[in-house]
């Protein structure tokens, strides 16, 4: 959902403008620390590591770092810092720099990491010439130059892969006590900082930020030698490969509810995941900037045409390729993880090893979701549900946006429009469908509303700068916001999701947390003021400013705390038996552990359809594989062709949900001309035929941490042509998708990487790359299966995924040059955690000229599925076998085969093997 305020919407439309109001959101020069520190790039870094203080213990090197006044011959120490370098499992390092003795503790982001990272060994190799050299167990070396402080991370070939502080932009602004208003006492210049405008307060538009702790920014630069491109740091709208930011603003990370966000922009929107990858033919590496405050990131790619070549030589010393990045945050500490790769997959996995993977979703959530702001009452829901059956379009869930509540008081129902929610849900579940309802974090300040009364009485709300309950304006009008940072509040909030506390819900009602940036209509930049106060565990000696966190420290993490509390509630309400589904708009590092994400309030325009691919790809490599965009576009109305193409594209994106604004024309599939409805039906059926392929990919993601939706360069890291591609992508390593995202297309250009062949999934016609022109009609979705893979399908598409549980499989074998292929299949009950008790099937499927085998790959895992093997389709067969025999459970059956000579496709008719147990098909020639 959601927009700012309806009044505003009206105003925009009347004057015919349909794009973001940029004035509402800060540019770098309007954000105090960005304005102050973006130009910060001293000739020489003041930071220096005290070699005598080095201590290596276990996987950690700790040392004292000091800043030294360079102008001073006496080398006066300006400030002292605590430095830590940790070696972590799987080729990962962590660099931390905090003040040695800060005035108050500085905020360390709490929830991004999926537990304490696993340690690796760290060995000190040498310590001389002002350098320290260390190595981890894999053999990655780290060279620390003590003065000025610089860290070089070497790949396994001994080449420098990542450099920190090469550009001298390391900075930790020391916390200072605010002086009383006295005249400059000593006039030594050190106080100038104190007096500088904006140190102790800032104003943006009419919003005043009291900044009681003064300046506390942190900064660090990273150099990636040999890199062609850097990627990541979602959520932005300007493409997968990041661009040089020397003109215009840096990329900004600050979770914001941006009304009618625009494309090709580095503006902050709903999500912030500060992980960046650098890739070139030599290697892939990454860095994860572990910080939840407002962050700006500059990028300079020296390989880009528009960076002046003389500058390139000057800076890079003649290196042809290099990308520099610089992370600048308003508060916190310097805490940088360095991911050593060396392949793209390695780096992506190293990131999910730190922040977690998306847990196996309930299977229904991979199906099609039907949403609108709003389905107005129970009759509306019923009629939408029935119409999907009338038009024979598979659908797994109907969603309710904010209007289902009693006056936007969450955990309540509008009893006039929704008098019998349990019955309504039962109508859906009778056909295997689910319901998803919205619960936003803002709480209506309404006397008599239990949640408000409890929160007020128990002090559960976020506090304003004066320590009173913070009041903002959101959907319900005057609202306050639970302080999830307090474990008691989170617990209380989780308990609201218990079935008895949220009548009408059941295990089949899933959740949607929107507006959790948090969105505050009347707040600065439509969010919470930075000087609001959050809970901090009480601790002796911590009083005053030290007794709470400010919103500025935790802003990007707020949504994550909201999601964690919801997730806990959803697990607990079903005693940990059923897997919950949850969708969020705000995103931060770690969000993937709790929730699927979507790209927010987009617009029904072709450009937004096209943008859904790079936006979700960026989120996917940043851990959030379960991503999608509002099908059709949230604002405005998609005409038939755009709607068709959007369904076709989204059918091949992980999260597949149609959604629309309350003021737009209704657009359920049958409201279009019959031909369009039929095309939408086809798109949805294509999705459902591949549901088990998706489900298997998501299962594998929980094991290997790799994205489900992948950029081409992940599997073709040596093909530079793939590096900038973000209008096509891979699903797993088997399917390549090139959605049609332009009006009136009669063909699309497709890049087919590797040796191929790539088989058109509609015709089984093999194609060789690297580039083909694919003719398209309005019904065509260009999707290709890589030679050498096996994709499981279920051709019997039913009303919902649950009804297909025991339906038979078709295995599509796409042969490589060696006439072989492999694939996998995951099966379980689709909704519980029983798979953790070994109640599942994970099968490896291999095809060779002599036999095809289906073997259970997980020791001891079993699941009594009724599914069976209906058909094997072998594409690209050159020498057809004379006969085929199936063996299962010690029985042999001769199989019927049909060879389609026109396209070299062999079909094995009805082997009827159970998918619960292994089988083999042998071929004779």
């Amino acid at each position, binding site marked *: 959902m959601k927009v700012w305020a309806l009044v505003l919407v009206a105003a925009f439309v009347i004057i015919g403008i349909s794009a973001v109001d940029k004035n509402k959101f800060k540019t770098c020069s309007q954000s105090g620390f960005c304005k102050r520190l973006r130009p910060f790039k001293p000739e020489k870094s003041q930071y220096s590591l005290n070699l005598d203080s080095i201590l290596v213990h276990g996987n950690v090197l700790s040392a004292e770092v000091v800043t030294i006044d360079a102008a001073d011959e006496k080398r006066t120490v300006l400030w002292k810092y605590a430095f830590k370098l940790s070696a972590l499992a799987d080729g990962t390092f962590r660099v931390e720099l905090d003040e040695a003795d800060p005035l108050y503790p500085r905020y360390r982001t709490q929830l991004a990491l999926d537990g304490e990272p696993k340690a690796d060994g760290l060995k000190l190799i040498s310590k001389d010439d002002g350098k320290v050299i260390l190595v981890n167990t894999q053999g990655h070396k780290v060279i620390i130059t003590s003065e000025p402080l610089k860290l070089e991370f070497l790949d396994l070939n001994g080449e420098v892969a990542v450099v920190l502080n090469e550009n001298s932009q390391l900075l930790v602004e020391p916390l200072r006590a605010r002086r009383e208003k006295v005249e400059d006492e000593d006039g030594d210049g050190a106080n100038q900082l104190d007096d500088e405008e904006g140190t102790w307060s800032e104003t943006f538009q009419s919003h005043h930020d009291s900044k009681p702790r003064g300046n506390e920014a942190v900064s660090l630069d990273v150099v990636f030698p040999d890199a062609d491109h850097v990627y990541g740091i979602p959520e932005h709208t300007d493409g997968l490969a990041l661009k040089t930011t020397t003109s215009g603003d840096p990329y900004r990370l600050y979770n914001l509810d941006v009304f009618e966000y625009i494309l090709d922009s580095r503006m902050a929107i709903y999500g912030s995941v500060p992980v960046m990858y650098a890739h070139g033919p030599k290697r892939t590496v990454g860095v994860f900037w572990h910080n939840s405050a407002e962050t700006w990131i500059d990028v300079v790619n020296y390989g880009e045409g528009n960076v002046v070549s003389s500058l390139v030589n000057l800076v890079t010393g003649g290196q042809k390729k290099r990308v520099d990045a610089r992370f600048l945050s308003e508060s916190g500490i310097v805490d940088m993880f360095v991911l050593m790769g060396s392949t793209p997959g390695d780096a992506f996995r190293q990131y999910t090893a730190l922040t977690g993977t998306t847990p196996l979703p309930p299977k229904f959530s991979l199906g099609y979701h039907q949403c609108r702001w709003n389905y107005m009452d129970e009759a509306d829901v019923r009629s939408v549900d029935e119409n999907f059956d009338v038009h024979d379009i598979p659908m797994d869930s109907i969603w309710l946006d904010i209007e289902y509540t009693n006056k936007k008081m969450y955990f309540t129902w509008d009893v006039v429009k929704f008098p019998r929610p349990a019955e309504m849900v039962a109508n859906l579940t009778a056909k295997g469908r689910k319901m998803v309802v919205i619960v936003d974090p803002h709480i209506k300040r309404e006397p008599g509303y239990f949640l408000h009364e409890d929160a007020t009485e128990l002090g559960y709300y976020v506090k304003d700068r004066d320590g009173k309950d913070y009041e903002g304006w959101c959907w319900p009008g005057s609202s306050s916001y639970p302080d999830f940072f307090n474990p008691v509040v989170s617990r209380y909030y989780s308990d609201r999701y218990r079935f008895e506390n949220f009548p009408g819900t059941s295990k089949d009602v899933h959740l949607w947390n929107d507006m959790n940036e948090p969105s505050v209509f009347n707040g600065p930049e439509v969010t919470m003021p930075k000087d609001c106060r959050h809970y901090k565990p009480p601790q002796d000696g911590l009083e005053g400013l030290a007794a709470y966190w400010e919103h500025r420290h935790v802003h990007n993490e707020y949504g994550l705390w909201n999601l964690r509390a919801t997730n806990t509630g959803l697990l607990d309400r079903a005693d940990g038996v059923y897997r919950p589904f949850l969708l969020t708009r705000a995103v931060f590092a770690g969000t993937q552990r709790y929730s699927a994400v979507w790209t927010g309030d987009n617009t029904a325009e072709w450009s937004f359809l096209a943008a859904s691919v790079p936006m979700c790809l960026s989120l996917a490599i940043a851990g959030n594989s379960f991503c999608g965009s509002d099908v059709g576009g949230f604002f405005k109305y998609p005409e038939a062709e755009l709607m068709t193409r959007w369904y076709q594209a989204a059918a091949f994106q992980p999260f597949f949900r149609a959604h629309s604004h309350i*003021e*737009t*024309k209704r657009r359920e599939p049958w409201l279009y001309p019959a031909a369009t409805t039929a095309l939408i039906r086809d798109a949805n059926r294509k999705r459902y035929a591949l549901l088990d392929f998706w489900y298997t990919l998501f299962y594998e993601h929980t094991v290997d941490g790799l994205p489900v939706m992948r950029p081409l360069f992940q599997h073709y890291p040596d093909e530079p042509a793939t590096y900038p591609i973000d209008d096509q992508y891979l699903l797993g390593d088997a399917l390549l998708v090139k959605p049609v995202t332009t009006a009136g297309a009669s063909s699309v250009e497709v890049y087919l990487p590797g040796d191929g062949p790539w088989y058109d999934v509609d015709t089984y016609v093999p194609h060789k790359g690297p580039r083909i022109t694919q003719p398209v009609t309005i019904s065509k979705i260009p999707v290709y299966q890589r030679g050498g893979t096996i994709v499981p399908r279920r051709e019997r598409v039913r*009303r919902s995924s649950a*009804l297909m549980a025991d339906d038979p499989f078709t295995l599509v074998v796409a042969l490589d040059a060696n006439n072989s292929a492999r694939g996998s299949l995951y099966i379980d009950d689709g909704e519980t955690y029983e798979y953790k008790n070994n109640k599942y099937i994970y099968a490896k499927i291999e095809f060779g000229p002599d036999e095809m085998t289906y073997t259970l790959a997980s020791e001891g895992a079993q699941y009594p599925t009724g599914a069976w093997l*209906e058909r094997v389709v072998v594409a690209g067969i050159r020498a057809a076998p004379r006969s085929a025999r199936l063996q299962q459970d010690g029985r042999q059956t001769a199989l019927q085969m049909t060879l389609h000579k026109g396209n070299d496709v062999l079909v094995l*008719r*009805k082997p009827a093997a159970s998918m619960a147990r292994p089988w083999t098909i042998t071929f004779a020639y």
Partner: protein
Amino acid sequence: MVCKTWIDRFSSYFVIFCSVIIFAQSDVPRPRGVSLSKASLYLPTKDFTCFDGTATIPFSYVNDDYCDCFDGSDEPGTSACINGVFHCTNAGHRPQNLPSSRVNDGVCDCCDGTDEYANPTACTNICEELGKEARAEAQRVAELHKAGSQLRIDLIEKGNKKRNEMAEQLTQLEKDKSEAEKIKAEKELLKNDLEMKENEVLKVYREAEELEKQKKLDQEKETNLKESTEHFNRFDSNNDGELSVDEIKVVNVFDRNKDGQVDDDEVKMFLGGDEKVDKDAFLSTTWPILKPLLMMEQGMFKPEDAKTDTTETEAEENHEELDADFEGNEEDNSDLDLQEEHEEDETVSEQSKSYNDETQKIVDQASEARTQYTDAERTVREIESNIRNIKQNLEKDYGLEQEFASLDGDCFEYEDKEYVYKLCMFQKVTQKSKNGGMEVGLGNWGEWAGPENNKYSVMKYTNGIACWNGPSRTTTVNVNCDLETKITSVTEPFRCEYKMELSTPAACDDSSTSQEHTSHDEL
């Protein structure tokens, strides 16, 4: 097995329906999911040919849970083909054709439960129950239509009567019209005659006035020229007969926006885009802009009064125009006798003029004649408008037998939680919030929009108030048979497209209900 099942069913069919002929037909053995009409296409003794003719397969492949035909015809009783059709007989109720994806999916779709044969205990046969309910409902509807038809006859009578009355009215009005036109013609003659006389006597006065006016204009022109020349010479500091940008920039009065300097925009405005102006250009271009500013500076002049000040903001201009229109109307009404093209001030002056007694008398007589003519003209217009209305109503489609005619103009209200809806038949639909606020038009009478065979079952009201960012509101009224005319529900299924259910005896049709009984084609 299949035969046994059919024999088991036999007895129940017999007891319930005693329809020997139909029963005999249903005894035809056929594969699962095949309707009686298609049974002959599935002959166990022969290979099966797909309906589309694309393949012929052994009969054992029919319903073997593997799709062999592109058209799905080989798997009528399984879910194997995505485009297959499963037929359930639903004895005791209506038969059904289901997409084959509904077969054995765990949901009971056929009331006889035959679609879930893989799990025989999953569904119970509820066809009898449903059939009974359906028949009872059909019965109820039939009775309702019967009773409603009596009331409908009354409505038809009323409707016809109303139309007859209107026709009579129309005749009367036509008569009245010719009468009134006659009077109008007489009055016009009289008026023209008197106005001629009036013109004659007023001529003298007008000529004198014209002269006076011209004199005044000449004077003004002269003053203006003098004044502008003075200013030109003053600004032209180097006396080269041209005003340059530099010369302008030092003169305060050109600082239009009072920001302390004469900027380029201001120069451009005053010089009409040129670098310099000579005296003539100054007079024609610069001076008209400059003069009001000078006057303002000197406090002689307030911008609100400046009709010639072209730089006034648009809003103010509009405001003025509105005022002018308003005054103009007043003028029309109160001084019909005077030339309309005259400006307001002149009109006033003419009124205040005094004529000699003789002249005054003729002017008064002419005024009186004009008033009488206007009245006569108005009467004709009113009659014509009445005629138009009645004709319009007579042309309206009130149903096959005028059954809706008497309802024209009747209004019905419906309240929900937030709104009161009002339907005025053949006029309009409105919505009013219970919390106050304006009445919103949801559409004006458009047309009957029912299906071809039942045109009078749906009314369309179109062109209501436009939604922001959307179309204008429309309302579809479904017209159902009941004994009383009332609205039974209002919804907004689509944004700005309202749906009303209206029940009325006018929609009851004794003959139409016979169709309802004929659905049991296969028992």
